[in-house]
């Protein structure tokens, strides 16, 4: 299952982490991420197929195509949020790293820590608000207002789960950062 890219990233995060327990948790999360990537692949493929079949069925069978857009939106929103943690595990959320090359190494290490903590704080907040949104939609039985009218807790739930994973991933990275600093000092 695994290929070069992922084993690299495991090595990288394990490097950041120092304690054995942390490495175990990190590996568990990475395993989960791998599963999530598989599901997301299916989601994006399914969205493409749905949109293609929408064209084909409307042309040949003259049927209504009023649910395909929304189904694709749900699949693609889901894939986007669910993959956030994986992308973060590879440090794939791009930032402007211009300062990194200018600052002295010690200052740069502090900057990295601060940035990770700030990201963690924001994502924690966002995760919390995603769950309240999910809860509202679930309890209120909210759906979209189209003829298809699928329940909104599905995409909200995917957003909440995805953001939770992302927050956990960031937490691991922050913990790894502090673990490593103790070793250094």
């Amino acid at each position, binding site marked *: 299952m695994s290929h070069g890219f992922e084993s690299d990233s495991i090595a990288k995060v394990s490097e950041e982490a120092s304690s054995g327990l942390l490495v175990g948790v990190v590996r568990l999360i990475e395993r989960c991420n791998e599963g999530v990537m598989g599901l997301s692949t299916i989601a994006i493929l399914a969205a493409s197929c749905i949109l293609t079949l929408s064209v084909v069925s*409307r042309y040949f069978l*003259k*049927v*209504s*195509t*009023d*649910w*395909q*857009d*929304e189904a694709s939106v749900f699949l693609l929103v889901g894939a986007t949020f669910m993959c956030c943690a994986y992308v973060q595990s590879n440090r794939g959320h791009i930032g402007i790293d211009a300062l990194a090359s200018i600052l002295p190494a010690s200052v740069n290490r502090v900057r990295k820590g601060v940035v990770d903590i700030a990201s963690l704080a924001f994502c924690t907040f966002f995760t919390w608000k995603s769950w309240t949104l999910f809860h509202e939609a679930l309890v*209120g039985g*909210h*759906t*979209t*207002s*189209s*003829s*298809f*009218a699928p329940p*909104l807790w599905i995409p909200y739930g995917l957003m909440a789960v995805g953001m939770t994973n992302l927050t956990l991933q960031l937490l691991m990275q922050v913990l790894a950062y502090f673990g490593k600093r103790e070793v250094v000092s």
Partner: protein
Amino acid sequence: AAPAQELKISHQFPGGTIAVGDFRDRLCRKFAVEVEKRTNGALKGTVYPGSSLMKTNAQFSAVSKGALEMSLFPVSYAGGEVPELNIALMPGVVTSYEQGLAWKNSEAGKLLSDVLYEKGIVIVSWVWQAGGVASRVKPIVEPEDAKGLKVRGGSREMDMVLKATGASVLSLPSNEIYQAVQTGALDAAMTSSTSLISFRLEEVAKHLTTGRGKAYWFMFEPLIMSRLVFEKLPKDQQATIMAIGAEMEKFGLEAAKADDQAVAKVYQKAGAKVYDLTDATVKKWQAIARDTAWKDYAKKNARCAQLIQLAEKVVPETPAEARPKVKAEKKGKKR
């Protein structure tokens, strides 16, 4: 003096000025000017047109939670959240402006206000607007005309009616309508007269069925206010807001009617053929709606069933002009 309290008024329609542009934007701007004038600057309205503040659907929750003060909002968009609100774009429920006007003081209107009030929303100004159909190959006047065409109904209920006529219904975002009609991916689109103008479909459509006179497509797009915000205001300001809201209804009515005429002119000028609906035709559409969308709606919950029943009892009353003002003043005094 205390600093002015800001009332943000958000809507999804194209922005303009107080004098020209989409009348729904102008209604908000007029309201903003009046409210500032009559409260001596204690309240200050700021209009955010074209979803420049937040997306259409987010507006409803925002008003309901008090994160947004006001919005001119087609409430049927929140039909997924509050099923009762689907009545606001139910084909055949309202068939003339006079009937729309009678809603405010009808039993149906009271029930609709209550539904919104429970959600934390106060109706400030009642605006109903007719719509029509722009199509590229052949006109859609009678229900039979829609058979075999690819149509965007724009709402769950309209889609149901269209499916019953044998049309194939398409859902696509409003910003893709133009290109879809141009290429032929879409044969016809239904929307309000004003949006038929602003989407510029006359460039690509050959036929227009207007909503002037009679129509089965009527949308309720009131100016709404957050109850949380409203109830925190002093009584006199509340009364002022409701009074201005009631005055705006007249402007809304006249402007909506004017747009029904204007859209016909715009399409005619672009070389499209224009058709109007007769009573008999509207009845035909209404009959289909009664069998499909109305039934579906009534099944949603008891209040929906009650609302659709009451809706049939809303009959146009005349004279239309004299009534709303008196009511508004009374309401103000009582408090």
